[in-house]
């Protein structure tokens, strides 16, 4: 057990599984000697060599498309896309090919592979680097879309993802890469990401998020507690599939809910959660479900990002309103 940040937890997971399973190989831009632009693969090239930690040409479609072929050959590729916004270059490969291979072949071919990509804002990256586009993949039935919020989950969910028979898009919180720290066991363990995680218990309202929004929600919950409002905070962990039972239970127990995410409001994944809850928990809801999200606008250049991001203040304000509404 040691204290790690999310990046260290991810690196630890990759190294652990590569040592345990020869079939695991990494591919991506600048992940070799350089160790990745965020150092997620630092040291792995030295340890496992260039045949297992592979620098790829600058072509996201080929990274994903060839990873699918590598998976079919019997390997377990873990592909890095430098920023989730550039997974759009491989959208056709991810959504039409990777996600559907099992279904298309009626079970003969499984695309057992992981696509890792950081996403989200707050660290002053250039245009398109901060786009929270996870929801654009959440309709790709056949793909799993997951997003850890803390180092413990990062390691355990990544190990689970690599061992998963289905393809997993593993969305990493760029913002928390170095700033979010926590205890991480040094042994191998998996986290069952199919279950939403109640990270805080409270009776008055339920805050729901994933990735770095969970941390915003937790800080909002602390602020609300000083006002006497006790919040449950749920980390959904997985967008696709969604743990419907888990979130319904968490909202039924409070009757009130605020969802937090970085993507714009319209067609963000908060819509799916709100729509599901508004139906399944209809008779328990005592106030409208609110969504605190990025505004309906492209992610801005760095100088305006703090205005764009859904902050603790906005979550607190929405939660206060929701807790009081009836």
């Amino acid at each position: 057990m040691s204290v790690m940040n999310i990046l260290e937890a991810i690196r630890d997971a990759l190294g652990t599984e590569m040592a345990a399973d020869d079939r695991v190989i990494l591919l991506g831009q600048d992940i070799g000697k350089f160790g990745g632009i965020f150092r997620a693969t630092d040291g792995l090239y030295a340890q496992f060599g260039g045949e297992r930690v592979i620098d790829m040409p600058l072509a996201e479609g080929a990274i994903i498309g060839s990873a699918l072929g590598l998976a079919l050959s019997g390997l377990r590729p873990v592909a890095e896309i430098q920023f989730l916004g550039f997974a759009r270059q491989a959208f056709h490969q991810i959504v039409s090919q990777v996600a559907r291979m099992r279904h298309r072949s009626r079970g003969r071919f499984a695309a057992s592979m992981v696509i890792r990509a950081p996403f989200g804002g707050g660290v002053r990256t250039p245009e398109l680097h901060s786009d929270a586009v996870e929801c654009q993949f959440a309709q790709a039935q056949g793909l799993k879309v997951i997003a850890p919020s803390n180092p413990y989950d990062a390691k355990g969910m990544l190990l689970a993802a690599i061992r998963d028979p289905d393809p997993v898009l593993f969305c990493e919180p760029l913002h928390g890469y170095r700033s979010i720290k926590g205890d991480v066991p040094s042994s191998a363990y998996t986290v069952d990401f199919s279950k939403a995680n109640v990270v805080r218990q409270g009776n008055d309202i339920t805050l729901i998020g994933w990735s770095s929004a969970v941390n915003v929600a937790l800080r909002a919950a602390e602020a609300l507690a000083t006002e006497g409002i006790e919040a449950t905070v749920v980390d959904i962990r997985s967008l696709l599939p969604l743990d419907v039972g888990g979130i319904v239970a968490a909202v039924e127990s409070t009757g009130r809910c605020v969802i937090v995410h970085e993507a714009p409001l319209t067609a963000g994944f908060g819509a799916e959660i709100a729509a599901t809850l508004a139906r399944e928990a209809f008779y328990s809801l005592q106030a409208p479900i609110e969504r605190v999200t990025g505004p309906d606008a492209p992610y801005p250049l760095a100088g305006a990002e703090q205005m764009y991001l859904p902050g603790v203040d906005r979550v607190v304000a929405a939660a206060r309103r929701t807790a009081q509404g009836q």
Partner: protein
Amino acid sequence: MSTPVISQFPYRGDPVAPVRLLEVDGTLTGGGGSVPPMDDEQMLSALWLMMLSRAFDDKGTSLQRQGRFGTFSAVRGQEASVVGSALALDPARDWIVPQYRELPALVNHGLPLESFILYFSGHPAGGYIPEGVRLLPIQISIAAQLPHAVGLAWGLRLQGLDAVVLVYFGDGASSEGDFHEACNLAGVVKAPVIFFLQNNGWAISTPRSRQTAARTFAERAPGYGFDGVVVDGNDLLAVYAATRAAVERARAGGGPTLIESQTYRLGAHNTADDPTRYVAEEVLDSWRDRDPILRVQRYLAACGRWNESIAAKAQEEISQTIDAAFAAARAVAPPTAEDLFLHTYAELTERQARQLREYEMPATGPANG
């Protein structure tokens, strides 16, 4: 300007002539001096596959017109290109990654004809490829299969196998970004993959001349770090020989080859298309003269291995094979609601299970939850 700049890579001159071994009249190129790369027995087997393909195109088209079969893309005119390339592989270790117009290659590699029929009848069971058959599923999304083939070839090699992967695609497919990304990666990692480009003159109604201004597709290969070859795609022997050479090179660790097989689609893009809107009859006729099947029959007839009675017997056998496959496909039970969900993931998700229950008990269950 005082100092003229010379382009080291000028675009000029005529396109190169394709490799050819068998002339239209069935004689060997350059006279009888050279030994053909296939013996008579091999050519007879190849001919059988080519004729099966042609007969299937006829049968499938007529059934489709009667509403008894789905829309599919005929191989007609490209039989030498498809069969010659497929026969250069070893089905016990090599893989084929298809587009959608390569029926005889798939059959030769082990796909039951019945699966192909089920697939183009729209039955979900048609997607299944039997265990042990080294084929990826038919690809509908143009060019998307190319990076898969590279990854598969590279991965097999990383695991120490001596397998080669041949990927089929069209002149149209060559314009997609996936083509470029796949070729470039294959060059970098020296994947044992053969890019087999069937230049059949058309992408639906779009002529080759509108697809690219390049004189040939094959000349793109050195720009990815490997060799390019242009073959007469209606010449079984040339296609076979060029593919064999590429297989041997790949197997020996020499990396990829791009083969441009110059052939011609002797009909519609698929059974929903009407090529009379855009193909001139004279051009079609000139290609009918170069029919790849006739060429092989002429050669074998000159060797005394082909005549009308052998032909009639083969036709009869082929026709029975095809009828049996259609009958078997028709006997498969229609798809159920479960077929919609199964194999999306290794296991049904909670939501899928709930939706499936709703299908099974529509009156009582809630809507998709």
